[in-house]
């Protein structure tokens, strides 16, 4: 029925299935440069701390960290869900996601600075400050209950648990997939499918709580049941963008020239479009419910993001994170142009960084009612950008390192053939 030329199926050791050397050679510059940029950026961020933004340093680090973590988590979820629904189309790009998913392990080490911040009372999470309750006139009994959850030991235990679960899942699926490259064993796919259901449940639970811990508890008196879903929406959207961009870059450098077709970009484009809508839906619902209910304990969080430069940023997010890419990726014609799709994907990755920044940074402000959060001046702005760029470079460098030792496509996946010949309706 197809009008396409019959696809060629290459042998597993085809050179286009490994990381192109032009990209592999970028590893060291990215790792080194990224590390330096990150350190300098965070250093500058500490220097940019001021009376009005006393927690700027650690918050900047957390922003950069949350950004790459959501990318890795989104990739993990992408892999899990493809197995869960036995997807055929995505096999050619799944390895790219797998390469980023396994970065959960190094990210666990990069989490240490955040744990480290717990030793400095109130320098990142204000609930670590023993005087917080009395300074803000909070009821002591209530605060005691709150800190039975939000306290350093329990926080550390939970963080370790999250990383154990994510790391375990990532390693399991990474091993399954790379072993299959060698053995071509079909049962491996069956096993991975079998565990995908429970894995998604675990993922949903841990991601939700990690979002509560690392994002929501920055404002310890604020709460929103939807917050975990909001973080998840950003993660899954940006993971699809990441896969699109990386696929495009790989193809530009000669890898998987024939395997990833315009159909895959079209499909990724559809998901990107869909998840832009999903992100907007979650973000809007969260805002609307809080705005409408107008209860002081909830509006506080949005109130901080409604004034000054963050007010502008909020509007910008609506327009640039939703409206512009929504219109931009709506057309089938655009989704069927890999170059354009890669461009939009890059754009959304930038927007996602701003989204994370918008979530984390206002909580670095001095927590009194009248205080309007700011960007920390030119120094703070440069510091934030440097940190995020550095962290991202580090992340990509690590990804390349992982990829260089392996194939960039799951060559012996039983559904590879289906994926290659896949056509959109």
């Amino acid at each position, binding site marked *: *029925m*197809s*009008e396409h030329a019959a696809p060629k199926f290459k042998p597993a050791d085809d050179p286009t299935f490994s990381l192109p050397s032009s990209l592999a050679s970028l590893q060291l510059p990215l790792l080194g440069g990224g590390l330096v940029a990150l350190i300098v950026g965070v250093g500058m961020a500490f220097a940019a701390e001021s009376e009005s933004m006393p927690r700027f340093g650690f918050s900047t680090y957390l922003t950069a960290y949350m950004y790459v973590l959501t990318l890795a988590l989104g990739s993990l979820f992408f892999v899990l869900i493809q197995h869960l629904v036995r997807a055929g189309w995505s096999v050619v790009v799944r390895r790219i996601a797998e390469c980023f998913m396994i970065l959960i392990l190094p990210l666990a080490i990069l989490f240490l600075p955040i744990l480290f911040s717990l030793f400095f009372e109130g320098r990142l999470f204000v609930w670590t400050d023993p005087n917080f309750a009395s300074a803000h006139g909070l009821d002591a009994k209530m605060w005691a209950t709150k800190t039975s959850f939000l306290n350093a030991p329990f926080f550390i235990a939970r963080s370790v648990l999250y990383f154990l679960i994510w790391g375990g899942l990532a390693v399991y699926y990474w091993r399954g997939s790379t072993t299959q490259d060698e053995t071509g064993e079909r049962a491996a796919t069956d096993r991975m499918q079998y565990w995908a259901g429970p894995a998604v449940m675990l993922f949903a639970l841990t991601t939700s709580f990690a979002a509560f811990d690392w994002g929501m508890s920055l404002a310890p008196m604020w709460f929103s049941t939807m917050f975990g879903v909001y973080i998840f929406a950003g993660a899954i959207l940006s993971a699809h963008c990441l896969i699109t961009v990386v696929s495009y870059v790989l193809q530009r450098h000669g890898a998987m020239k024939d395997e990833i077709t315009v159909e895959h970009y079209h499909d990724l484009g559809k998901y990107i479009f869909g998840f832009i809508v999903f992100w907007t839906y979650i973000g*809007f619902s969260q*805002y*609307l419910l809080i*705005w*409408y209910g*107008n209860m002081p304990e909830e509006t506080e969080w949005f109130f901080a993001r409604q004034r000054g430069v963050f007010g502008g940023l909020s509007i910008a997010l609506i327009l640039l994170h939703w409206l512009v890419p929504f219109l931009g990726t*709506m*057309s*089938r014609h655009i989704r069927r142009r890999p170059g354009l799709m890669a461009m939009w994907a890059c754009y959304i990755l930038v927007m996602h960084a701003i989204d994370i920044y918008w979530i984390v940074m206002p909580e670095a402000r001095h927590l009194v009612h009248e205080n309007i959060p700011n960007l920390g001046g030119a120094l703070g702005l440069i510091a934030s950008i440097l940190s995020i760029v550095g962290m991202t470079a580090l992340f990509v460098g690590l990804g390349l390192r992982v990829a260089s030792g392996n194939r960039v496509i799951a060559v012996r996946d039983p559904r590879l053939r289906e994926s290659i010949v896949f056509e959109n*309706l």
Partner: protein
Amino acid sequence: MSDTNSEKIVHGMMAEFTTVDTLLSACRRIRDAGYTKTDAYTPFPVHGIDKALGIKPTILPWICFFAGLTGTCIALTMEIWMNGVDYKYIISGKPFISLPAFIPVAFELTILLASFGAFFGMWALNGLPRFSNPMFTDPRFDRATDDRFFLYIDAKDERYDAAGVRSLLTDTGSDYVSEVLEDNTPKEIPRPIFVIWGVAVAASVIPLLCVLLMRVTNSSQPRFHIFMDMDFSPAKDAQQVTSLFADNRAMRPDVPGTVARGQLIGSLDVMTGIDVDSLQAMNAPQAQRLVAAFMQDDQAAIADEVTDVAKAEDDKETPSVMDTTPWVTENPMTVDSELMARGQQQFGIYCSVCHGMDGKGNGLVNQRAQEKGFDTWVPPSNMHQDTLYSDKYPDGKLFSTISNGIRKMPGYAGQIKVEDRWAIVAYVRALQKSQNATMDLIPEGRKEEVKSAVDAAQKELQRQADEAAKAAAAREQK
């Protein structure tokens, strides 16, 4: 069949296929042969056939996009105009133009109009509905919606030539090739359909006309109301009945314990005439019952209680002339000329009709009753018997009698205010005193005046007595 063929317009040629693959290859062949006015008829969408036939993509997505955009604009304009401009209404502290709250409706209308765009756009682009189609004349074509695939070349095609087309189609592997002829079913629409249509249209207008008529008619009569709603006031007037309450009264009596404004005067002692504290000491349950009855605002119960209190004393071991009920012995009001005047007035209104202006028990009602000789008539008491003097009949007891009645006399608590009842008590005391007054009771300053008045009165009486004596003497002389 051939002779009928010659009379009819030939629309084109169709060929039947049994599988998708043969159809597709046939499509490619006729496309490559240069035919452009071609079409395939299949029971399900066959993928790749648009390329095989050279069908161009549709503009439907654009129609939907603009329809959706129109929906958004309509919704936002409508919401902003209605709630932000034309009808401003403060609700839950939200601004008049609340964009977050306007999003859901805008979203729904966008989807609705875009869906209409897709649905009706498809109709329009496909030229549907189209009930008459020459393809349908061939009974074999019925299987085009079941399991057969048809390829059609239109006679209007530049390259069309019946014989050539037939051979080309037979060549592609079709086992049935046939010409498509003009539909020979009658073209006129049956008349009953028009009649039904007309009647339906006419009938559908009637309700509208009725509504219109009702809207424009000027009439002093109220419009017909299926549901009354709030057009008529359901407020109740006094003295009306209602089934809503057990007593059928529309006007509700006061809630028990209600004291009218300005009527809460002093303590319970003042209200009952009984020294409740003393009663409490003597007979606590009795006192509580009295208070309870009072809280119920039930005049009869109060009266019963009060009489009970009084009776309980009477029934005690030795019937004593002395009443041991702890009546209030002193008028709680400030006794002054104003109170006296008030008491005189009230006594005049309420008491004098029976008891007489002087309190001697011979008011107009009594006179009339005596005249008529009613045998059940109990004559009103004379205020001037010594059992009614304040040493034997304390002020409280007198007050209580006025309030609750005694023997034939009804209670006046409902008619006379508490203050006024005490005023009457004061006035009655004054009346009693007036019958036994001595000069000692007269204030110094007014003694002369009274003396002269008394003298004048005595003189006058003397004069009248003399005159009477004279007159009597004169009669005797006659």
